[in-house]
């Protein structure tokens, strides 16, 4: 490898993590766009082929508010839906370091996470700001 190639490789390695971080944390627009797309796909009955309930507009609104209330620069969640009509925010690093948070239409958050060999699950209440416990759960992933 030439000196120039080596220098370019070092530059690439130094730049890549920053680019990856920017891609996954910038604002909330990307997450809100994904939320909209998932809702559009899952607002009719049987959207998963297994008799799933539709995602109601109240659930969409609750998930929207939760995403909006996350701190700027916070890791971006991936959005999904569940058979009972809840929406999901997921923070995933690996199969055994992953957190899934369900948003229901009544403002409750049901979560389950794998933290290596540790497991955490429970329920939180969401009003208008993201619960401190949720922020910590994500940071611990």
């Amino acid at each position, binding site marked *: 490898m030439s000196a120039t190639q080596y220098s370019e490789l070092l530059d690439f390695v130094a730049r890549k993590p920053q680019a990856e971080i920017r891609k996954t944390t910038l604002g909330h627009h990307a997450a809100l766009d994904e939320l909209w797309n*998932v809702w559009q*796909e*899952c607002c009719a009955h*049987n*959207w*998963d*082929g*297994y*008799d*799933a*309930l539709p995602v109601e507009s109240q659930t969409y609104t609750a998930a929207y508010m939760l995403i909006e209330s996350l701190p700027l620069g916070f890791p971006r969640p*991936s*959005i*999904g*839906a*569940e*058979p*009972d009509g*809840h929406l*999901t925010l*997921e923070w*995933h690093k690996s*199969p*055994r370091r*992953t957190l*899934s948070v*369900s948003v*229901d239409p009544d403002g409750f958050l*049901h*979560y*389950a*996470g*794998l933290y290596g060999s540790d*497991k955490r*699950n*429970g*329920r939180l209440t969401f009003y208008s700001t993201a619960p401190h416990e949720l922020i910590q759960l994500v940071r611990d992933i």
Partner: protein
Amino acid sequence: MLDPSDVPDVGHDELLARFIYQSSHIRPSDRTVKPNAFLPPKNLLCSVTRHLQATDDEIWTIGQCGALERGATLYGRADVRSQVCADAGLVVLKVPVKGNVNHADVSGWPDDKSEQKMIAQELAAAATLVDPPTAWQVAS
């Protein structure tokens, strides 16, 4: 496929397939399956297909027929061992149905939502996502 007149109970180490008809159940970043794919519907029975005595083509044909019946797209299947279900406190019951003698239901789910999610996390972490045959993807 299994002999319809002699369907054995589900063994401890059988491979089970969960067909995925919803694109958001798959993580595009690393091509793994989300726990949402395993969460049961309101009857708390998660429908799966046993690999026992079935060829890969037969398994995919069942999944594709399911997609046609539902008017849905088959995005893949998540394969998981029955032992993983048992370790999570679930029971896999043989439930042959018309067109799929290898059908089974994963039952024994708790009522609590976060506990359901915890179990689904375990199943997803142990599952392997398998993409549909390339020819089908091109055709569709």
